[in-house]
């Protein structure tokens, strides 16, 4: 069986790759494109460690076929820092010790960025429900939620 040829955009860069029809987007990112920042924790959409955006919509890359990327725009954790500058969420996660082992961190950050793009002023409850699909076993979520809320406040202030 011939592999599929996929043309897509990842973190703003147009690129092409070959994949098997059953390969997930996560497989393609990690194995074909060497973008291993997205993690596989469950392969069933239950942990969110593989979170990416597909045309700015938050999805689990383990629940998407690589072939579906054709003609679409993908963003991953590797595209979050721009020009060597960390995103405010990345800075805040570091300042607030909002990560321990770090395996969920990529997905948490991608999901949080998607939240703030849609809702720059989320309540604690909104943050918690938005991130409910991102499992973290280390932190109890406390510092993650605080980091997202504080970043939101600072980004709103900076935008004024």
């Amino acid at each position: 069986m011939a592999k599929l040829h996929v043309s897509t955009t990842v973190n703003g860069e147009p690129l092409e790759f070959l994949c098997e029809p059953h390969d997930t987007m996560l497989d393609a990112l990690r194995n074909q494109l060497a973008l291993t920042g997205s993690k596989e924790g469950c392969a069933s959409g239950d942990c969110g460690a593989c979170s990416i955006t597909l045309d700015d919509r938050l999805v689990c890359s383990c629940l998407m076929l690589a072939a579906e990327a054709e003609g679409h725009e993908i963003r991953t954790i590797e595209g979050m820092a721009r020009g060597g500058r960390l995103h405010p969420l990345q800075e805040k996660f570091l300042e607030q010790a909002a990560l321990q082992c770090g395996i969920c961190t990529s997905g948490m950050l991608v999901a949080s960025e998607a939240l703030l793009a849609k809702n720059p002023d989320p309540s604690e409850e909104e943050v918690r429900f938005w991130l409910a699909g991102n499992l973290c076993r280390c932190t109890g979520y406390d510092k993650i939620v605080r980091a997202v809320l504080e970043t939101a406040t600072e980004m709103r202030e900076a935008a004024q």
Partner: protein
Amino acid sequence: MNIVVNNKWIGQRTIRPDGVDKVTGRAAFAADTAMPGMIWGKVLRSPHPHARIRSIDTSRAEALPGVKAVVTSRDVVDFPLDKSVMLGIQDMRWMCRNVMARDKALFPGHPIAAVAATTEAIAAKACELIEVDYEVLPWSIEIDDAIRPDAQILHESITFQGKPSNIVGQLEHKKGDIEAGFKQADVIIERTFTTRPVHQGYIEPHACLISVAADGKTTIWSSSQGQFMVRAMTAYLTGIPQSDIRAIPAEIGGGFGGKTIVYLEPLATLLAKKSGRPVKMVMTREEVMRATGPTSGSKNTVKIGARKDGTIVAAQGTFYLQAGAFPGSPIRGAAGCSFAPYDIANVLSVGYDVCSNRSKVAAYRAPGAPIGAYAVECVLDEVAESLNMDPLDFRLKNAAKQGTKAAHGPVFPRIGYIETLEAAKTAPHYSTPIGKLQGRGVASGFWFNAGGESSAQVNITEDGNVVVTTGHPDIGGSRAGIANICAELLGIDYRRVSVIIGDTQTVGFSNLTGGSRVLFASAMVVTQAAEKVINTLRERAAKIWEIDPEAVKWENGAAHPASPNAGQFEPLTLEDLAEKAPMQGGPIGAGVQLNTQGADGGFGTHICDVEVDIELGIARVIRYTAVQDVGRAVHPGYVEGQLQGGVAQGIGWALNEEYIYRSDGKVDNPGFLDYRMPVCSDLPMLDTILVEVPNPKHPQGVKGVGEVPLVPVMAAVANAIYRATGKRFYALPMSPPKVLEGLEQPIQQAAE
């Protein structure tokens, strides 16, 4: 020892050395690497809970195009059953049979064979082509079934009371005269509790990438809680000498005790050796749930007697813990820790290690202690209630303190348990009014904490900065703590200190990341190494200044004359001395290896508020405060994080997490959908109060902090649910169907 005070860096919330890599996706975890020529390994696992393996035919698998190697138990070094070979707390007799079933498969998921092939799909297909002839045997999973007189025995060679038995171990702690003690009691309460197996739940599945060269030189890239454990166990199980195995610690995506033993590494090594190709193996989540971890399910009876004045006069505990397929359940933690917070004259605490047809238990955060504490702390709540005492006052009256002899042996040095109770009592949380169908519970907990072997190297770079290499994998931010300590000692900005975890061939032996030992032990070796470096720096400055080294002091990152008498010299900074090093005696650095001692136990006290939806049976934690004696919070952010993470795991254990078995003995919920760990929207903010009673035996006053936070949680939640509903629950998890069922009885009675 000098406890450093007025610190610049110790106690600061600095940025962790590995932080930027982890927020940008650059950090390399176990599954994140590849090698040229790499192939993929897969494990064929037993579908049966208990079966004799009559034969295994791998010929069809080997013939499949793309298959490069197949291994079975014939390829794994055998450790005969008649002789125990211990590595740490693990017996290689059991480890060799756990990584690959020999004569019998003992649980669904038990490895039977492993295949390496050019793609994962081919390896999986090859596993299907392996023919195994099983003689299916009767089996048991639950403790009550496993200890019945007619139960099928897992290990005929192990006897209890003279007969082959699934009770494979026993441990007893005794103090005073238990019967005489109960005779003094005005109130005696005895209850039986059950808990279900729960998984550590790390998000990163086990994974490794292993290459074996033609001369046997082996490189292991894997995530574990100990690269030295990986090296030693792999050496034992493959026959390759340890000197030929370089085990490189990848970043580890959570462990909580579950990555203190090997599963894949010996198999991937054998496959790599046989195929001549680097082999990568990554477990699926389902494999993780079926074949690794969890901790024990348990059945425990606790009896506590107290006098009217609140003095506990006798306490008895009997703890049956599931070991799974091989001996080794954490009865020491259950029987040893649960009464430790209290000064009780008469104690009898007995643990039984019970084998059954379930995956072998792995350590889980204070192994055994949360199970014991759940029973003890719930009974204490009942005793306090029957005496009409505030539960914290009751604990204060009986609290262990300096000089108390614990039932498990030690006489406590200066400990901070009372301080945690006092801090809990005065915390605003404890006096805040609560609403209808809400309840507030408290509970305490203890964990031994460990020290042990640790090695570190502190090297000064040519440009006058610092590289620290230690040997314990960093799961929760220990590198940040080490950077703070090193910066403090050398008097430089912490950003000038790079902290890395060395591999087995570049840093000295260091014991597992476990037992809450890492910052305790590595701070000790790093401190001694840094002190040696400072002495070298003073000697170098003294030589340049042509004065006595004793007349040189090290301050703020530079050598200074110790006093005006020593002479007038411009300070020589770390950079100055590094630059001059080639002409002044060569490289500057020091290594230290110690078997660290003095890791005193840790205590915590928790306050939990719940709200119960009595129509649906749902209990939600709405407020939580964890108080703990942490010794010294070298990096408060990551200390708080340990407390918060432990609490979250405990809330999961209390309310929803459990292994559910089907009637055929297989786990019915081997994934994150139905193994219900807390999600972000399940929890409130988790408040912490760090009580700092410095450990006098540690240069920075450090005590282990990582495990205590899980110990009190389930009891705190259960006690809170009682206060909210008037109903006590004696079984975990307190999931909605069970809570509703429990609540229905009194409600119906009231209606009648």
